């Protein structure tokens, strides 16, 4: 069974399924429901196949499997692929999320019927999943770049799928443009590697990477951080993310936010840890700093949002920050030659990658479910949906708890591991105060981030699902279809199970970490995991998912039982109205999302720079008897206004200057030719 999946045939079948899905849904494009069934059906089969492939590869005894295909007389790059434990982990990650998102999509895409081509959606959707799988399996630079660009391309089309709104096409433009700028750096990474190692093949690069001069290693690091960071959405390269993710259909947002941005993390691990075995310490410190800033700013901007998908998108930035904190620690430990601790840190990073994929997809799917019913993404217009959409509410609640790192859900355990790796960095004083301070600040940022994330999800869940509906759409919402519920439910269950069995999961992830840091028998592993608990550094820290779950469950059940049956059980429960101080409570009296987060925004106003714009209209001309008064409280991303806008206006201005070359004057044109001729002649004979 496992051998069959892991054979060359098994590998090629994986991509053939997606290709068939793409073609089939294109062929069936005249019938929306056929295209939907075919497109998503093949995606489901393909990602199931991928999940099995990834799973088997992860537990297989083979460290690395290589696949190579040749097409004669083709301009295509060498089709060489390699699946090691890291790739296997990401294949599993991508496929499982894609599997559930595709099931969800069976119902979700119905609301696009007759509006846009479902065939095109299926086409790009299948190719998108396939390209992500290609990204994590490619084993030479050109093939990788091809897959990387295909991923950007297909996701771009999914972002602009809802093309009637110019907001979406603009978001797509910005997304694709920034991805292309990122590609400059990604290509630069491999071009530099190629020019020093003479190879585009990953294994050969790995073998020769240590000989690259230090300066160029630093340049590669910077380029990798910029290029892959652009895809991951690290601050300050993040501004595409909150625009692009909301524009895509929700199951695609789930994939983009949950999985696609992780390919950047994958490549950072691949380049920084895999290619360079002994990175300089400052790499790790830079990654820690970037992680801390991304985590904090991500969550702060999330608090300012009242578009649910933008809010979730900003949380992706935050979580990428947390993942980078783990990765940064791993880099630091690796350069300090502490493979045991580095393994813990990389496990933290990988585990959080996995967890974020699960709960972020869950949240996006939940958001999609809500949007498909209310036709708006503005959470100010929601309210009370827990009554009309109880399942969605329940699943979203689990997602919120998982992303807020509340035990016993999965988010807690990876955040715990991340904290522990930062703690280990603080405690380890072999490399001086500066490094300890770096870890300390990162730890502080993580603690603050955790608290703010909790606040943000109280807002997101509370304003969306609780209390009274604030709009008629919200009032008349219905629970979404069965496939959507299955998709969300399975993800919610995974969020719980990954937490409860976090010990077992980290055990598996340890084998992934071992590919980076082969721990000799002389060094004791820093992490011992079994099915019931994760234990660090000989009892420095110890946490058990299953016990947390069981104890909390028992405590809750016994509280319920005790208070319901033991204490006294004759009380009545009366339904009444909320205390309204005498005026009937209306939706206008409820807490708004803006109101909820205004306190925090005001506290962080130095960073967020909120603007309050109050406009008043008067009854009789000026300043007497105000008729109506409206206040607009808004926060714009400071990176947009202080970083991107100046750069883009500079670029446009410079281009306008260059355009003056085309003056229209033919004599000037003759002069150019003449000067070029004489100039080149003189220069070349000097």
């Amino acid at each position, binding site marked *: 069974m496992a051998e069959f999946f892991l054979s060359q045939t098994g590998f090629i079948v994986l991509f053939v399924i997606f290709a068939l899905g793409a073609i089939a849904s294109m062929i069936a494009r005249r019938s929306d429901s056929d295209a939907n069934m075919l497109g998503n059906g093949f995606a489901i089969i393909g990602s199931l196949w991928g999940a099995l492939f990834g799973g088997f590869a992860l537990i297989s005894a083979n460290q690395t499997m290589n696949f190579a295909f040749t097409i004669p007389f083709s301009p295509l790059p060498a089709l060489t692929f390699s699946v090691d434990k890291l790739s296997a982990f990401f294949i599993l990650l991508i496929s499982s999320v894609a599997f559930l998102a595709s099931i969800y999509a069976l119902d979700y895409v119905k609301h696009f019927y007759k509006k846009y081509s479902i065939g095109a959606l299926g086409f790009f959707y299948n190719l998108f999943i396939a390209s992500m799988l290609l990204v994590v399996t490619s084993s030479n630079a050109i093939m990788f770049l091809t897959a990387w660009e295909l991923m950007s391309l297909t996701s771009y089309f999914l972002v602009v799928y809802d093309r009637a709104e110019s907001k979406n096409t603009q978001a797509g433009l910005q997304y694709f443009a920034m991805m292309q700028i990122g590609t400059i750096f990604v290509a630069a990474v491999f071009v530099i590697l190629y020019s020093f190692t003479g190879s585009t093949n990953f294994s050969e690069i790995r073998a020769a990477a240590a000989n690259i001069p230090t300066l160029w290693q630093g340049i590669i690091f910077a380029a990798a951080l910029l290029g892959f960071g652009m895809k991951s959405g690290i601050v300050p390269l993040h501004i595409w993310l909150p625009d692009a993710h909301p524009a895509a259909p929700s199951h695609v947002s789930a994939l983009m936010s949950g999985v696609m941005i992780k390919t950047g993390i994958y490549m950072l691990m691949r380049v920084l840890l895999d290619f360079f075995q002994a990175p300089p310490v400052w790499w790790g410190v830079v990654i820690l700093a970037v992680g801390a800033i991304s985590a904090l700013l991500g969550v702060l901007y999330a608090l300012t949002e009242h578009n649910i998908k933008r809010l979730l998108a900003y949380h992706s930035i935050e979580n990428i920050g947390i993942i980078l904190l783990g990765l940064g620690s791993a880099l630091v430990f690796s350069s300090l030659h502490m493979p045991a601790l580095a393994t813990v840190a990389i496990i933290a990073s990988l585990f959080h990658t996995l967890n974020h994929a699960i709960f972020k997809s869950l949240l996006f799917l939940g958001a999609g479910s809500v949007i498909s019913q209310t036709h708006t993404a503005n959470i100010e217009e929601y*309210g*009370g949906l*827990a*009554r009309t959409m109880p399942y969605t*509410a329940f699943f979203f609640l689990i997602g919120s*708890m998982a992303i807020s*790192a*509340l*035990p016993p859900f999965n988010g807690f355990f990876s955040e*715990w591991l991340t*904290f*522990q790796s930062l*703690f280990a960095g603080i*405690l380890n*004083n072999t490399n001086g105060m500066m490094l300890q301070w770096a870890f300390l600040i990162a730890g*502080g940022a993580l*603690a*603050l981030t*955790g*608290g*703010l994330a*909790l*606040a943000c999800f*109280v*807002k997101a869940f*509370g304003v969306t699902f*609780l*209390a*009274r509906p604030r709009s008629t759409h919200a009032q008349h919402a219905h629970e979404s279809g069965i496939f959507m519920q299955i998709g969300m439910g399975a993800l919610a269950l995974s969020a719980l199970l990954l937490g409860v069995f976090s010990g077992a999961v980290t055990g598996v992830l340890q084998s992934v970490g071992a590919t980076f840091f082969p721990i000799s028998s002389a060094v004791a592993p820093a992490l011992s995991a079994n099915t019931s608990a994760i234990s660090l550094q000989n*009892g*420095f*820290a*110890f*946490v*058990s998912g299953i*016990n*947390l779950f069981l104890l*909390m469950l028992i*405590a*809750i059940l016994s*509280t319920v039982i005790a*208070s319901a049956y033991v204490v*006294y059980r004759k*009380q009545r*429960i*009366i*339904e*009444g*109205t*909320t*205390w309204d101080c005498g005026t009937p*409570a209306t939706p206008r*009296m*409820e*807490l708004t999302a803006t*109101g*909820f*987060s205004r*306190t925090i925004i005001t*506290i962080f106003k130095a960073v967020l720079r909120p603007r309050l714009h109050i406009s008043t209209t008067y009854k009789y001309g000026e300043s007497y008897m105000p008729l109506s008064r409206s206040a607009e409280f808004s926060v714009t991303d400071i990176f947009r206004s202080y970083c991107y806008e100046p750069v883009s206006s500079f670029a446009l201005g410079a281009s306008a200057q260059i355009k003056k070359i085309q003056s229209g004057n033919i004599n000037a044109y003759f002069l150019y030719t003449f000067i070029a001729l004489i100039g080149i002649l003189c220069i070349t004979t000097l």
Partner: protein
Amino acid sequence: MTSTFAIIAQLLLVPALSPLFIGIIRKIKARMQNRHGASIFQPYRDLNKLFHKDEIISSDATFIFRIAPYMVFAVTLVVAISIPIITTFIPHFGTSDLLAVMYMLAFGTFFLALGGIDVGGPFGGFGASREMTISALAEGGLIFSLFAVSCMAGTTDLLSIPHALLAYGSTATLATVLAFFGFCVALLAENMRFPFDNPSTHLELTMVHEAMIIEYSGKRLALMEWASANKLFIFIALGANMFFPYGIAASADLSAVIISLGILLAKALLFCIAIAVIESTTAKLRLFRLPDLLFLSFIASSLAIIFTI
């Protein structure tokens, strides 16, 4: 066998004693205000009465409102058996990690805030908003202050910290003092005491915790009140045993446990007096001044860590 006994003892001790400390604080405050004050057992009577009353639940509320009190109360019980209160000799379930405890408490806060929002009244909403703001900002100081003692002890397992600290000796007094200061600020913030919140007010402009539970009644209100009492006791026990671990029972020996309980009660009484004094002598701070205090707590704790390592 002894450890099972220890667990049950702790499990019962927390809910059993927690209302008492609320009563004590109220009594001291009353005395300082030249009032006679209710009996220190008054909170027990309140709880009992609430458990027997009918409930009114808002028609706007969803299932969250109904389950929140159970969640909030239950996590305090789990925390109760995860931290050293009178003895460290209870089984390590793997729930006693510093971060696990902190996030379990956050779990309670999460449901408390959601319950506040759920009724759709203006009070619950802004209460939740303020609560989440304060607890988000307090989290750094709280985690770091406890991590400072973890650094000294060489473990983040709360059950192992007291003994390790005793073995460590008292070389890091400055660090302990700083960390303890950080912890106290966080304690006041997390439990909504002065100068963060006035637990006895129902004035719209200032209340935080009371605003969130304002719609609760009957049994659910009793659970909410009880849970917050538990939380206060848990914090006091943490403060007593993590920073001044003297006297905690090293074994499940009955006499040691009783001595330990006595010492704990004494230390807790000191905390209660301190809280009551603070509440009687300081004014509640403006909401936007609170972050300064919380950041101070964070900085103090960070300094404590730096001094330790």
